[in-house]
């Protein structure tokens, strides 16, 4: 990851809801192939910030480009250039594995031939070849997560946004999922990820921590730990997030 091409550039991005400022003038860059951890307490403004970056919500003020496109007036191009996986995976429970893959691939405009190729490739990679005709609802959560991630990047986007992708799975499955993330990043895909597991923050190249709508800290996990004199990212997070928490 020795290149400095920026794929996300944000400056003074702000979003207000009435009198409440959910995102308060945040600024940061994300580089190509970087695993960028976007952390914050519940209600800190993460989801609002992500919604602006993926073109689902208009900012009140400030600037942001994602994959080179402006969030104000090029949101359709942004949607084509990114993959998005939410904590409630958007797989269709009553469709089979293969049907879900071809549904999403179709939405992203892949041709029938590409869809067939991708489906075979994906099933093989995830070791699901014998389950292609099983319904999603019969799958264990860990498989759903891996499939949801693979489907989210089926159109080969340059950036993948992952919103709490690993909630609730067992510790082995969680780590297998991170291997998929590492692999995607090795292939120059940029990963923008949120999580409540602080050990996962350590797997990121850089981490930002949001508190009350603002970015309070942004650096590599190693630098953050030394700056806040903490042994773990959990301690860093608690120091920062607790600072303003009392007033809610």
């Amino acid at each position: 990851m020795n290149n400095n091409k920026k794929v996300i550039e944000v400056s003074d991005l702000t979003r207000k809801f009435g009198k409440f400022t959910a995102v308060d003038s945040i600024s940061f860059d994300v580089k190509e192939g970087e695993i960028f951890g976007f952390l914050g307490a519940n209600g800190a403004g993460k989801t609002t910030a992500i919604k602006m970056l993926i073109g689902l919500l208009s900012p009140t003020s400030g600037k942001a480009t994602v994959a080179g496109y402006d969030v104000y007036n090029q949101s359709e191009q942004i949607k084509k250039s990114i993959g998005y996986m939410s904590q409630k995976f958007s797989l269709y429970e009553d469709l089979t594995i293969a049907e879900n893959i071809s549904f999403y691939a179709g939405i992203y405009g892949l041709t029938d031939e590409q869809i067939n190729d991708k489906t075979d490739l994906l099933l093989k990679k995830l070791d699901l070849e014998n389950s292609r005709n099983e319904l999603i609802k019969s799958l264990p959560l860990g498989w759903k997560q891996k499939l949801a991630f693979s489907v989210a990047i089926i159109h080969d986007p340059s950036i993948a946004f992952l919103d709490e992708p690993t909630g609730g799975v067992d510790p082995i499955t969680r780590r297998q999922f991170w291997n998929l993330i590492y692999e995607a990043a090795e292939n120059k895909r940029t990963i923008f990820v949120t999580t409540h597991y602080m050990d996962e923050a350590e797997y990121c190249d850089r981490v930002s921590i949001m508190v009350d709508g603002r970015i309070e800290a942004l650096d590599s996990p190693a630098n953050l730990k030394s700056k806040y004199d903490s042994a773990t990212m959990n301690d860093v997070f608690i120091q920062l997030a607790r600072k303003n928490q009392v007033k809610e």
Partner: protein
Amino acid sequence: MTVVEVRGLTKKYGKKPAISNLSFDVNEGEIFGFIGPDGAGKTTLFRILTTLLLPNEGNAKVLGKDVVKDYKYLRQRLGYMPGRFSLYMDLTVEENLKFFASIFNTTIEENYDLIKDIYSQIEPFRERRAGDLSGGMKQKLALSCALIHKPQLLVLDEPTTGVDAVSRKEFWEMLKRLKEQGITIIVSTPYMDEAILCDRIALIQNGSILKIDTPNGIVSGFRKNLFSIKANNKYDTIKFLESYEFADSVYPFGDSIHYLDIRENLNSNDLLFDLQSKGIADCKVAVIEAGIEDVFMSLMKENRDEQ
């Protein structure tokens, strides 16, 4: 005194057992944790213990009473906080609490002492609708509602899932204070770091209990040599170790890699030497003490390999 006594408990949905042949005891005044992933059977077990679901086989006694026959007795004396908070989102904070109090024929005033510590944190927002609360505040309200009838046993199903690290820490501090007031607590969580805050824990996977012990007992019973490897390029090192002929397990772990080797009596210098000779130059190797998560992953893997 034994508060919960479970013997051979089994519940099937269709042919598939959600829990099979579970047996365990929970003692008065302890915080007993069920640690395991989604789908392990925790919710099924908790619903049986709180008289909301009938088992297929085996039996469970809570407070000395049978969960099937004596459900009316038990419902008066149990507090249950389901995974998805059972709050009424269109009612205010105060209305929710009053509602739960009135169901149990009591009032907020009567048991205010018990919830004061928790409820006082959300009381400034008592006019706010529950649906407009943040995750951490919903959690505190749900806990207040589960406590309002002064239960002898509190059953909490994943109270901290999806809650940030700060609120999780505060929540466990509240549980500790409840325990000091003599309430027995059964709690489930997917977070391994919460396991050490319990008096005893059961590791549960695929409807079976892998192990029950104190957190210390679980960790000290782990006999394998665990290596921590810190490398410059973590991904490459993981890939290498996964294909390494002596590898037992390889997991990223915070800023390092936790590695188990199939060879006995391997020391860290030998391993380091071996890695360096295979081209993984820039790394540090140390033998470390296993944590709960290491033990759990090791047990899970053995369990999977056996199946």
